[in-house]
Every structure is written in C-alpha cells, then in structure tokens.
C-alpha cells in the first residue's frame, strides 16, 4: 500500500486516483477536525478548499515532512481565515450552555456537550486540544502544525485543561457540590467506590 507521501508525489504529477485514495484516507479525520474547530459551519466548503489547496501546492510538499501534519496545517490556516469572516448570526458567549441539548425525544442527556465546551475555549487552546486529544497527535506534531514551540503547546494545553475543568465544574450544580465536598469528590474519582454503591 502506497504511503501518504508517495500518493502526494503522484498527485503532484496529476494522478486522479492517487488523490481519490488520499482523500478516502483522510476524509473523516479532516472533516471531524474542521467540524470541531469551526463548530460545524461551512465544513464541507472548508474540506473542499483544503483539498484544492493540497492539489495546488502538491509540488511544493517536502517529503521529509509527514503528510498529516501538512494537511492539518493547511486546514487550520483556512479555518482561521474563515473565522475572520463575520458569523451569520452573532453568538453571545453568555448564552453558551455547556450541558447537552435535548435530543429528539426531548430528553436531556446528563453529560457535558463536548462541542460546546470546545467552543468556550479560546481559538489557540481549542486547536491544541482537538489535535492532541481527538487526533492523538504528539506534542511535536501539534507544534509543527501550529508553527509554535513545543513548550507553547504544553502551556496552551494546560491552560485549556484548567479552563475546561472550571467549565465542567461550574456547568452542573451537582458537580459543584461534589467539588466542594471532599468525601463525595473522592468517591467520584474512584470508580471502585462508585461500583460498590
């Protein structure tokens, strides 16, 4: 099976089939990344524009780099440009509910809504969390994609985590009580005790 780097070299020579294979491999991860990063607006257009840029720039791809890093870098740059455009409907951050919305039956899921939590993060921290957590990329890869030092990746991740913990605790009154009560807290953090209950 051809590697991504071999396929992009074939794309640089104009091979339709190589692009189809590469697209098939990366369609879902790229779509998921852009959905999480943008919150789901204009994702299909961004996916298309990312691939068109890939084809246009295929001749300049450095084979010493990983294709995935390059792909996410291009997608991220496009998504950032896209974010500079005004949204269709202005969103008031105060209206952002961190709990999951009711489903079709009207039932409200007791869990937190990941999309809303991510939306509550500053853009720079959100990109780091998505790439590190959802795409399981290493700190070096994330640093290469965002063009920042590795230490900055770590600090952004830590700030993001602190903010997420605060948001998760504040989002639910039961969790707030849990956080303020050491006995409940230990129980919540110990799955064995939860099972015994």
């Amino acid at each position, binding site marked *: 099976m051809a590697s991504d780097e071999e396929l992009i070299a*074939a*794309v*640089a*020579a*104009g*091979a*339709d*089939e*190589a*692009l*189809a294979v590469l*697209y*098939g491999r990366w*369609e*879902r991860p790229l*779509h*998921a990344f852009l*959905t*999480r990063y943008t919150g*789901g607006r204009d994702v*299909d257009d961004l*996916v*298309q524009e990312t*691939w*068109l840029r890939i*084809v*246009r720039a*295929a*001749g300049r791809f450095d084979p010493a780099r990983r294709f995935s890093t390059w792909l996410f870098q291009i997608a991220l740059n496009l998504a950032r440009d896209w974010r500079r455009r005004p949204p269709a409907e202005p969103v008031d951050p105060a209206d952002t509910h961190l709990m999951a919305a009711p489903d079709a039956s009207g039932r409200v899921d007791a*869990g*937190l*809504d*990941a*999309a809303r*939590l991510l939306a509550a993060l500053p853009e720079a921290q959100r990109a780091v969390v998505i790439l*590190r*957590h*959802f795409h399981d990329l290493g700190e070096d890869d994330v640093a290469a994609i965002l063009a920042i030092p590795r230490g900055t990746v770590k600090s952004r*991740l*830590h700030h993001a*985590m*602190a903010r*997420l*913990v605060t948001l*998760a*605790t504040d989002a*639910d009154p039961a*969790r707030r009580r*849990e*956080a303020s009560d*050491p006995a409940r*807290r*230990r129980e*919540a*953090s110990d799955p064995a005790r939860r099972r015994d209950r």
Partner: protein
Amino acid sequence: MTPPVCDDVRMRRLLGHPAAGDDAHVATCDACAVATAALGHLWAAFAADRPPIPPPALAPRVLAAARPLLAARRRHAARRALAAAVAVALLPLPLIVFVDVWVLQMIYGTLTRFFPATLSFYLVVNYAAVLALLGALTYGAIPLLAERQARGRYEALHG
C-alpha cells in the same frame, strides 16, 4: 499556579493515558482530586462526542473540483519533462557541431588534393546538408519521444 506534577497527572487523565503513580498522587492531593472528578466528566463528554459523518456527495464534489487542477498539474509535469529532455539533449550539441566542422574541414582538405576546389566544396556542402538534416530530425523527435515516455511512465504508475 499549579505545580508541574499536578499538571502532568491531569494531562495524562484528560488524554486517557494515566500513569502508574497517578492514583496515589490524586489520593493525597485535594486539588487534583477536584480536577480528576471534573476531568472524568470531561473525558466522558469527549469520548461520547461523535462528529457528523461527511455527506456522501462531498467526495465526488471535491474530486470533481480538483480534476481541472490535476489536469493542469499533468500538463505542467509533461512540460517539465520536455524541458529537461531538451536541456539534456542540447548539452552535447556544441561538441557535436565542433566535431562536424572539424570533419568537414578534413574532408575538404583531402578532396582538394584530388579534385578542383569547386567540386570539393560542392561535395562537402552536400555532406554538411545531410548532417544538418539528420541533426534537425534528431532534435525534432525529442519532444515526441519525451511526451511518449512521460505518458508511458504515468500509465505504468497509475494504470
């Protein structure tokens, strides 16, 4: 400010890769116990997050939009192969011309020993014309051969 060890413990929990000593640390650190409970909910929320599947129409749309760009890339690659072939073929041309001129001078010198100068000149010019025609045909065939070779290589690689 969170101590580095607490940061690392929480990060590993968020990423779902806890280390061996993390539980012992959480048992003794109140701040981490609070964070761990929240991280557990966060981790569950992240694990449950399923982004929508790309619509089936998206792949044909993207590939169709890329087709003209790929055709342009093919043309560009063919032009580059041709330029490289012509450049490589032109490299020995000065030497070929030099050798031909030298050979023609030698032939003319030899012929003038046996024939009148006008006849010798006529024979040498005829021979030079044949050489020039062969050279032109050879260099004229380069673009055709380069294009055929590039097409053959493309078909061998991509079917």
